[in-house]
């Protein structure tokens, strides 16, 4: 087994230790879903459709968005990386033949396997309540394009978190930056409102930003909010952003190391 495979297994074990954190997160997921249900239920009262979508389609979109976050969302990777840098734990990686990005990516993948399992568990519990509202399209291409889109979403989310974590090379405290970016990502990623409900001009700007591909894009493919042409174009733009962000992560790592001082014995 490769060293990154080992890192994945260790990550799996350490994330299982924090299973209660994921369980608590699942509980919050129910509450978020309830807020969405109450708010959009009230908005749809007397309106059969909003932006061309029924209440079931909008609720399905939010369920998929929330579940996606369990599978591909970077929750606290930025914080973990910043702690490695601040506490000097990063020094051990400088002395070993291991790529820190690949190592962190392996741990991230392990964490998403555990949180994804909790996401499915949460969905199974919620299913009796939301089943009547779920309205998923049946075209096969949606799954064929949705899965690679999810993979690229994970890469974009992780690379962004990695870059923010790297800020610890320059700043003592990065939580402010992280939460600042979280607000932008939450809004422009379509977690607050489906982005296709934005005015067309705003939507056409947002679709070229990386945040668009952090949640909305795979959810829009899977829930039928966008067609095949849009999905293919989007996949190309998403691949471009994933490439740019991975390169940026590498560049920030190299620049950060020039700043870094490994002290102690």
């Amino acid at each position, binding site marked *: 087994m490769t060293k990154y495979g080992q890192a994945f297994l260790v990550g799996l074990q350490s994330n299982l230790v924090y299973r209660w954190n994921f369980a608590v997160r699942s509980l919050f997921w129910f509450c978020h879903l309830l807020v969405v249900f*109450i*708010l959009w239920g*009230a*908005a749809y009262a007397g309106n059969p459709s909003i*932006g061309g979508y029924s209440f079931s389609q909008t609720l399905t979109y939010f369920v998929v968005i929330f579940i996606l976050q369990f599978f591909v969302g970077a929750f606290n990777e930025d914080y973990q990386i910043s702690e490695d840098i601040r506490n000097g734990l990063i020094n051990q990686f400088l002395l070993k033949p291991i790529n820190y990005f690949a190592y962190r990516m392996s741990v991230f993948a392990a964490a998403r396997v555990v949180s994804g399992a909790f996401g499915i568990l949460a969905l199974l519990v919620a299913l009796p309540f939301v089943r009547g509202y779920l309205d998923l399209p049946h075209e096969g291409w949606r799954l064929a394009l949705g899965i690679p889109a999810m993979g690229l979403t994970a890469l974009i989310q992780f690379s962004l978190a990695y870059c923010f974590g790297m800020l610890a090379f320059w700043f003592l405290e990065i939580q*402010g930056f992280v939460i600042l970016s979280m607000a*932008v990502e939450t*809004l422009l990623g379509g977690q607050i*409102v489906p982005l296709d*409900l934005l005015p067309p001009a705003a939507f056409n700007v947002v679709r070229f930003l990386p945040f668009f591909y952090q949640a909305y894009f795979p959810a829009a493919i899977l829930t039928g909010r966008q067609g095949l042409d849009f999905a293919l174009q989007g996949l190309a733009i998403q691949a471009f952003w994933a490439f740019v962000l991975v390169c940026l992560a590498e560049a920030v790592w190299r620049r950060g190391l020039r700043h870094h001082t490994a002290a102690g014995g």
Partner: protein
Amino acid sequence: MDSLSRYLRIWLASARYSLVRATMFRGDLFIWASVELLWISVNVIMVAVIYSHTRSVAGWSMYEMLLLVGTSMLIQRFLMGFFWSGIFEMGRNVRSGLFDFVLAQPGDPLFMASTRKLELDGLLNAVVAAALVVYSVRKLGLHPGAGAIALYACMIACGVVIHYSALVIAMSLSFWITSSQGVEGSYFTLMEFSRLPREAFGRLTSILFVWVLPVVVVSNAPAREILHGFQPWWALGLLAATGAWLGLAVAVFRSGLRRYTSASS
């Protein structure tokens, strides 16, 4: 009276210390103020997008909804500004034994623990939330008199006390359990319900979020007072909830304090 002025002097000393600290870390203050401002903007954009597709949500127009969101934000920002850091650190300090430091101070432990730090960024954004309330009131063509504004301010104060009490109860759990992780997340999740109109809740959800947990009453009561004038039942309900929650918080905190066995606990 002597005791009141002594506590006022202690609080002023803590406030002065917090202000000096905030001005020492100006970059940090700027980042956190931006974070809060951005989250207020996210909520405003969400309301604007929903209302670009519908005229009313649970009978509330867009500016009525903005008034509700502004009111909810105002309460939250005051809580963050005056009490959040102190109460949040309480859980950590109980676990580490640093709570001894609070007990050694010349005042009531709950007062000393919860008023130790003033967060300037939260208070700066209370001004933004207040501006949102004023903007909504103007757009609605309302002209509340001095009495109505004073009553609104009292209701906001009641809301802050209720939120403070709920947070103290949650953090006091650290006297019994080793980890109060997730309290922050649960607080923000519950706050999401306070931005919803009372009329949007069904029978079942009303029981939990209107009657058991007063998250909805806290924001809806002051907003309704500005919109529809003095409504005795809402005002009395809010006052009763304030007294009950504060009493419960003090009782839980004192009961927890009796269990505290200093650094070795």
